[in-house]
């Protein structure tokens, strides 16, 4: 068995546990990071509120994984490609997804994956672990074209048990692909705890099977996360191949709004996890470093509050897609046999039609 020492710079109280990287002495990156983490959390709160009031669908909260999402989002260059799983809204927003369209996706509307600002980033992927292989395909395209770019893909702890994930690590190793795999080990896959997923000591050990480097990082510590992601990206840019990063976090929320985590995990465990949460940790450190104070905090909260509120309003006033959109993106060109169905769908949706809905 291998054991990796977990990479950590800040303890849960935000106190450094070792010499910090040089860049920590300047507030720039840390402030941006904090900004997006707060944004992520407020997005989350709003999304849950929208869902609870029947204005959005089932939603996967990212509570507790803000440090992972934001550090990845900030470390990537716009030339890189993100292949997310379904819990990376913050990362997607940093990379350009309009906030209202992030809501739109969870509102059950394909346009949430459509923004041109997302460039070649992948859309949310519901079928677990498939994205790991897509990321390898993306990275292969970069490698074939001799580009100095990298692909980052995320996955949950549960997802690491599915064959696709291991197949992806393996091909990334053989072909030395410029790809970074990040496991958001939030300890739970819906109701299944980490220890029931695998007997591996660490999820980072999965890398050994593929002959690639793996490391475990404190996923509540943005400094550790940035260090890990930056160096993995660097390796990728330099043609040194893939890296696996296990980011240890905790799912502070229910699995989704359709879930009730009290059925299967203890309150104590949850309470304890809150002690380690990423936002407080960074805030404490920034206060300690005199980069931050209560006034700045209040101003930020208000700024972001407005941003989120505006995005939610935009989302809510967004009309439904025309019914024929069901057909118009299936193929580049509409095949003959769908013309009839498309026409029929339009007729059915019209006043007097079997599927007419008031107000659409």
């Amino acid at each position, binding site marked *: 068995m291998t054991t990796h020492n977990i990479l950590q710079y800040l303890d849960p109280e935000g106190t450094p546990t070792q010499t910090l990287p040089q860049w920590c002495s300047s507030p720039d990156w840390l402030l941006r990071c904090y900004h997006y983490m707060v944004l992520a959390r407020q997005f989350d709160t709003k999304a849950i509120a929208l869902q609870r009031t029947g204005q959005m*669908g089932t939603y996967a909260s990212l509570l507790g994984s803000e440090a992972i999402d934001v550090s990845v989002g900030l470390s990537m260059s716009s030339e890189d490609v993100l292949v997310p799983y379904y819990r990376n809204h913050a990362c997607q927003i940093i990379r350009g997804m309009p906030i209202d369209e992030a809501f739109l996706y969870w509102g059950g509307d*394909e346009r949430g994956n459509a923004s041109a600002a997302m460039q070649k980033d992948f859309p949310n992927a519901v079928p677990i672990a498939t994205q790991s292989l897509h990321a390898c395909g993306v990275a292969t395209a970069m490698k074939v074209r001799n580009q100095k770019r990298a692909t980052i893909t995320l996955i949950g702890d549960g997802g690491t*048990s599915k064959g*696709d994930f291991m197949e992806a690590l393996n091909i990334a190793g053989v072909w030395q692909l410029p790809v970074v795999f990040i496991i958001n080990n939030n300890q739970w*896959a*819906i109701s299944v705890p980490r220890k*029931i997923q695998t007997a591996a000591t660490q999820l980072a050990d999965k890398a050994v099977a593929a002959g690639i480097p793996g490391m475990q990082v404190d996923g509540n510590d943005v400094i550790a996360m940035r260090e890990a992601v930056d160096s993995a990206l660097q390796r990728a840019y330099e043609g040194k191949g893939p890296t696996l990063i296990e980011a240890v976090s905790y799912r502070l929320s229910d699995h989704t709004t359709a879930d009730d985590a009290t059925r299967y995990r203890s309150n104590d465990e949850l309470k304890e996890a809150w002690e380690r949460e990423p936002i407080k940790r960074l805030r404490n450190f920034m206060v300690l470093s005199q980069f931050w104070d209560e006034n700045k905090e209040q101003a930020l909260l208000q700024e972001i509050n407005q941003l989120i509120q505006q995005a939610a309003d935009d989302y809510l006033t967004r009309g439904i897609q025309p019914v024929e*959109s*069901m057909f118009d993106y299936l193929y580049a060109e509409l095949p003959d046999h769908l013309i009839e169905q498309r026409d029929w769908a339009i007729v059915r949706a019209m006043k007097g039609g*079997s599927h007419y809905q008031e107000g659409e």
Partner: protein
Amino acid sequence: MTMKHSVCLLEAVNLALASEMRKDEDIVLLGEDIGVNGGVFRATANLRDEFGLKRVMDTPLAESMIAGLSIGMSTQGLKPIAEIQFMGFIFPALEHIICHAARMRNRTRGRLSCPLVIRAPFGGGIHAPEHHSESTEALLAHIPGLKVVIPSSPTRAYGLLLGAIRDPDPVIFLEPKRIYRSVHQEIEDNGEALPLGRCFTLREGKDITLVSWGAMITETLSAAELLSEQGIQCEVIDVASISPLDTETILASVRKTGRLVIIHEASKNLGLGAEIAATVAEKSLLDLQAPIARVAGYDTVMPYFRMENHFMPNTQDIIDSVNQTLEFV
């Protein structure tokens, strides 16, 4: 004396599982989140408490694995009942289902067999995320060696699931999640199975035959009811076992009514409706007084939930199609 329970379809599944597990020690359940959590829909609620860890197994996240394990267990005399959390996630399990479960008996000339059940909720209409709403039952129905069963009421869920569990061959049991909780029925937990491979005639009528299964039975029955007010008598057939298909019952009905409308939520192209229509066109062409109509989902991807209702046929569509078929001369 057995107790009567007023249960919805979901609870009927739970009742059948508990009932049969008490009688047959070889039954084990496996799947994602089926244990402590009792399943994301609660189909296996409380079973872990009653039957323990060794008979109700939470698995790691891997559908290929769930199917593969089930095959291994079933060849050794256990009776695994696996849950695939949503039918949209059954694809990684298909290699095992198609290449092994469906073939083990044939491949070994009966030496080994795979008596197992794979349960999965399917179909749209609950405003779920992508991949939680598909109806790809036709893919499974095309595979020789499988049985594919779809209940459309709590009573039939209870009886057919017992039938599936006792069946000596692999059965895919698809649960129409849109009607998981919509109707309650009184069920006596008497352990009586319903036969697989048989349609159920839910309503007799002489004017036209309506054939459907799963959640669409609800709309089909509503349509029949509304049409009866106009004096049109529909015969409503619940296919229930979509494979092997009970063509006799359907053919007999078409011989009587001369008109056929098939209703399903799945895409029309190569949906099960195609096989039913083809069989009738092959065996009862002269009985037909009008073209066979299929009221089905479009040949496009099930849209995200904001538009899913536009995809799925509804009661009015069925009525329209029936009227059109009746008007044909």
